[in-house]
């Protein structure tokens, strides 16, 4: 065997090991979810019979119907609004003459590294002041604000690369700024907007801190926030907990697998440009 072949085989084996380590937790979760409810199954052992019913039990125990509804309300409140206003701002900062453009951009960029924990305490009192605690709006409004640094930077990076001639030609034809934006640029920006939408959807679904601090009722939270409450309530019933976790994480896997190509491109581009 020559060196390159040996390298190739060592590489393959290493890769398979790393993949196995990645997959085993998912498999363990799945197998455990099939054990009889209320039992304490040992590690990776297969159950004597598969209790598919656990998924139904978890669905009912967690009141998953209400959770899904709440999560979709939050997604619908966050994603379209965040996309729209970030696209507008990104277009202006990337493509138009705006006074104080650099300052404005730097203000947004500064927010990129801000840990949510850094503002969660005053946010609680602010929401109390607005009378929004324990409503979905208490998650929706701050989340839109918190997504702005990334979303604006992302859309600006896209619009900076749009050729200026395009806008000049549209202006010659008498387009107003709004027409230029809505008729010319938005249709050409669909891929960038779609990628951003996928990222924001997942980040909203997975948002935990805001959910547990600002909303007490698990049925008005995001999916991840509800899972936290589910663990508190059913933490001792391991099979049921595993089934519930699977129900909540599966949609994220589906979104990822369906939009994989866009998703990965988006993340890389966004990360490197950031």
């Amino acid at each position, binding site marked *: 065997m020559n060196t390159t072949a040996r390298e190739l085989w060592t*590489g393959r084996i290493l890769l398979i090991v790393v993949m196995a380590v990645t997959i085993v937790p998912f498999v363990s979760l799945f197998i455990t979810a099939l054990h009889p409810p209320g039992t304490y199954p040992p590690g*990776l052992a297969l159950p004597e019979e598969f209790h598919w019913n656990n998924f139904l039990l978890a669905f009912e125990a967690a009141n998953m119907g209400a959770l899904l509804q709440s999560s979709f309300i939050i997604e619908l409140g966050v994603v379209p609004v965040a996309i729209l206003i970030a696209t507008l701002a990104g277009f202006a900062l990337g493509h*138009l003459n705006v006074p104080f453009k650099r300052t404005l951009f730097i203000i947004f960029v500064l*927010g990129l*590294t801000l840990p949510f924990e850094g503002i969660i305490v005053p946010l609680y009192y602010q929401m109390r002041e607005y009378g929004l605690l324990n409503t979905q709006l208490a998650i929706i*409004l701050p989340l839109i604000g918190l997504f702005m640094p990334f979303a604006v930077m992302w859309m600006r990076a896209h619009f900076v690369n749009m050729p*200026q001639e395009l806008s000049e030609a549209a202006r010659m034809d008498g387009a107003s700024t709004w027409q230029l934006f809505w008729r010319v640029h938005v249709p050409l920006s669909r891929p960038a907007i779609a990628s951003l939408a996928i990222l924001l959807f997942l980040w909203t679904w997975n948002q935990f801190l805001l959910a547990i601090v600002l909303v007490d009722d698990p049925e008005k939270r995001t999916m991840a926030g509800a*899972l936290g409450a589910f663990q508190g309530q059913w933490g001792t019933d391991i099979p049921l907990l595993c089934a519930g976790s699977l129900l909540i994480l599966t949609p994220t896997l589906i979104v990822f697998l369906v939009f994989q190509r866009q998703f990965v491109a988006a993340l890389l581009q966004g990360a490197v440009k950031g």
Partner: protein
Amino acid sequence: MSTSWSTTDKATSRPSAPGPSDDLRRKRRAAKVRRLRTGLPGLLLVAPALAFYGVFVLRPLAATVQYSFYEWNGISTATWAGVDNYVRLLTDPDLLGPILNALQLIIYFSFVPVVFGVIAAAIIRKMGASRLAGISRTVLFLPQVIPLVAAGIMWTWLLATDGAVNQVMRVIGLDGLTRAWLGDFDTALPAVGVIGAWVNVGLCMLLMLAGMTKVDPSLYEAARLDGAGPIREFVSVTLPAVRQELGVAIIITVISALRSFDIIFISTQGGPGSSTMVPGLEIYYLAFFEREIGQASALAVALTVLVLIVVLPLNRLTRSDSDS
């Protein structure tokens, strides 16, 4: 950067004539007014994003700083405390401990996944378009898309006394080392770190892979012809090419270590004792259970500043050569 604002830049940085005449000043003011007027539609477009960001991020951020100088239980009137909360931050081991833990987590959340990510990416790149390469790219990224809460639940179960980790160890004859990994003072922090590493490997791998695919294959051939082994080749050809992506991977993972919350909330709640307590969780406890709003806010300010201190120097790595 774009060319779109170069015109305005020129207008502002035009060298002024010695002793500007009234005429010139008037002209300048007219230009400024014109610029503001032509810029108005642009400002209007930025306004909604800025409003949300201002009201729900900048305002609470300013409030955090303000609260941090007060002693307040959230109900009665707050009293001015000066820098007391910050002094306690540096002297009370209960408050300094979480910060040190977070710094220690950087090893697991950042260093380990970056190393594994680089190795995995180097292997995948060599395989080119093979099926295994494609599948592994998808598989390694899965932990990155699921909620961190779910990752915490999975691993709590894996690392439990009767979990799969101990089961495997018994099979390979390491009975003596088995334990409740998350419940043991010595192993809880590394065990939590393993969860973070598991989550972050895929992201690092993808970033590295993106950097490596930019490298001209002829460079590798040249290195091979010069007799370079795989390690030499990696150090002198691959590493310089992925500098930017490496920087991004380190920044993202370091931030994830410093602001870790979800995984620890689910798996250990900071325990046993306070061996896995991190700033995010401590802020949560202080503010919403112990009702020490001022102290929680001081810790929040410290965490925010700490992230900036760590990230800003790393940022140099991500600049491409053309910028510098």
